[in-house]
């Protein structure tokens, strides 16, 4: 297993709320399981942080079968936050992650403001959780899910409630399925968020013309993910980075170092790599190395020096 080479004097570290990340690269929730699934391919210690599968108060079975469809340059998928529930996460999944020197961020979802707060309280008492990513943007859950992410008042209420339930770093994840994403980013900042991540999947669909049914079975619609999402994600990250003072984490179709650098130049402090983890389980390591090489080539010693340096 190759370690990320400890290049001469390049500082890749990033601060998100109370978390100090050794580099700006982490997996997007739902594309990395609970970390262990990737242990044959990478050392989790090499990552900036680990974001685990979306977690709810009770276990969830998620969407119907036929959950994934490949589309040009990406996927249309509906997993529906299938997960083991917060208690089983703490008992069965978290102990494995404690052996690593990497901040663990738990992506949480709920059907009510109270449920978000309750999951947060439970996680805050568990040893080994550094941050909470609030999923108010899942396109594939009927109750809760995206509902909280498309109404700025609901966004504010959830973020405020989660902040009130924890001292951990709180990072809401925004949906692209809105007219003006900056309104939601501002609501998060006003509610006390420590950072903002964006974007989640765009709602999409596909029809089988022979059967006249959805190619995602009974799920009907799914989230568009993967490289084809990147231009939209980049535009939204750029918009948000201009209007908030808290760190922004860019997510959406990142597959190589250049992709990650685009987000950082647009103003992101860090990035999440999603769909491409499923294709290349070492892609995050390659991205970290590529960012370092880029800084060396440009003669820059600190990642912060290039952040937001996109010239518009």
């Amino acid at each position, binding site marked *: 297993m190759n370690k990320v080479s400890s290049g001469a004097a390049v500082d890749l570290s990033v601060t998100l709320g109370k978390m100090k990340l050794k580099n700006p690269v982490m997996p997007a929730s739902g594309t990395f399981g609970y970390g262990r*699934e990737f242990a044959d*391919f990478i050392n989790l210690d090499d990552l900036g942080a680990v974001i685990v599968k979306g977690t709810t108060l009770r276990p969830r079975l998620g969407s119907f079968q036929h959950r994934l469809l490949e589309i040009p340059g990406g996927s249309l998928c509906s997993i529906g936050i299938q997960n083991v529930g917060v208690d089983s996460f703490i008992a069965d999944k978290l102990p494995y992650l404690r052996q690593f020197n990497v901040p663990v961020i738990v992506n949480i979802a709920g059907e009510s403001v109270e449920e978000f707060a309750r999951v947060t309280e439970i996680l805050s008492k568990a040893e080994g959780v550094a941050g909470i990513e609030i999923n108010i943007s899942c396109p594939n859950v009927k109750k809760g899910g995206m509902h909280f992410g498309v109404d700025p008042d609901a966004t504010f209420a959830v973020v405020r409630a989660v902040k009130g339930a924890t001292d951990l770093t709180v990072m809401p994840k925004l949906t692209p399925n809105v007219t003006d994403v900056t309104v939601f980013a501002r609501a998060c900042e006003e509610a006390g968020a420590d950072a903002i991540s964006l974007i989640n999947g765009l709602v999409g669909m596909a029809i089988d013309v022979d059967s006249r049914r959805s190619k995602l079975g009974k799920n009907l619609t799914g989230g568009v993910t993967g490289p084809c999402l990147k231009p939209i994600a980049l535009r939204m990250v750029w918009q948000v980075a201009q209007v908030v003072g808290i760190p922004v984490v860019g997510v959406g179709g990142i597959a190589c170092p250049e992709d990650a650098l685009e987000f950082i130049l647009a103003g992101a402090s860090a990035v999440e790599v999603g*769909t491409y983890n499923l294709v290349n389980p070492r892609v995050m390591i390659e991205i970290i190395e590529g960012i370092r090489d880029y800084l060396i080539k440009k003669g820059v010693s600190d990642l912060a020096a290039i952040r937001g340096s996109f010239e518009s």
Partner: protein
Amino acid sequence: MIREKSIIQGNEQLAPGFWKMRLVAPEIAATVKPGQFINVKIAQCKAPLFRRPFTVFRCLDLDKDRPGIEVVYEVVGRGTRMMSAMGKGDELDIIGPLGRGFKRRDDKRVHILVGSGVGLPALFMLGEELSLAAGRGELELVIMLDAKTKERLILEEEFGSLNGKTLVSIHDGAYGYHGYVTEMLRAYIAEEDIAADCAIYACGPELMFKALVPICSQYNIPAQICMERNMGCGIGACLSCVCRVDKKAVMKHRDVRSSHVQFEDAGSSGYALVCCDGPVFNIDEVIFDE
């Protein structure tokens, strides 16, 4: 799980639309078991994006005693079309061996392989194992090969070389049994009176599995089926390839705690992952119509 940069040794057409690719894959060849699969990144591109899963057809020694594997595939889309255009010396990024394969039912005397179309290759490694045991007189091997038309029948020669009885069904009656393999199977079990002492291993379309269900329950025959689903990762992370399973049957057949199976709260069913809990399931575990 091993990731190998694998060099293609050969890629030949078996029948219209069907191809066989030979790969140098020493580490995967050393550990792969019947019914397991590899996940292939066909080219370093974003379209096609995901890896494609293929069950391993067989392991073999390549030149200079290098262990290799073969996969047999059907050209159905852009990815497999690209694969069919590749040749000796080209490189593929593969991960494997993945999944849970077939488990031999050593308590039974007659072992029946039931395969249709591009499902056939998934049964060959198991066939080789059973053939060795049949050669030692430990069991009887019956191989049923099925295809829509004679032109689409593949691997007849390979399966025919095993120590077993090979039967062919072709849907339009151009060759062998006229009809579906499941009808041929039902007739065979009755004629040979083997219901009490046989086991079935099957791979083919889901319609074939559904037709197997009443046969297996009528005669109380254990059957293992190799399932297919669109997969994202193949390693149990993305939860895309779920398959609805019956709780009672799953509890009977496997240790749920060491699986990825998740059940409904107070319900009688749940979801298993085809990539990790499968691709091979016991037929009574699977709920076909959700």
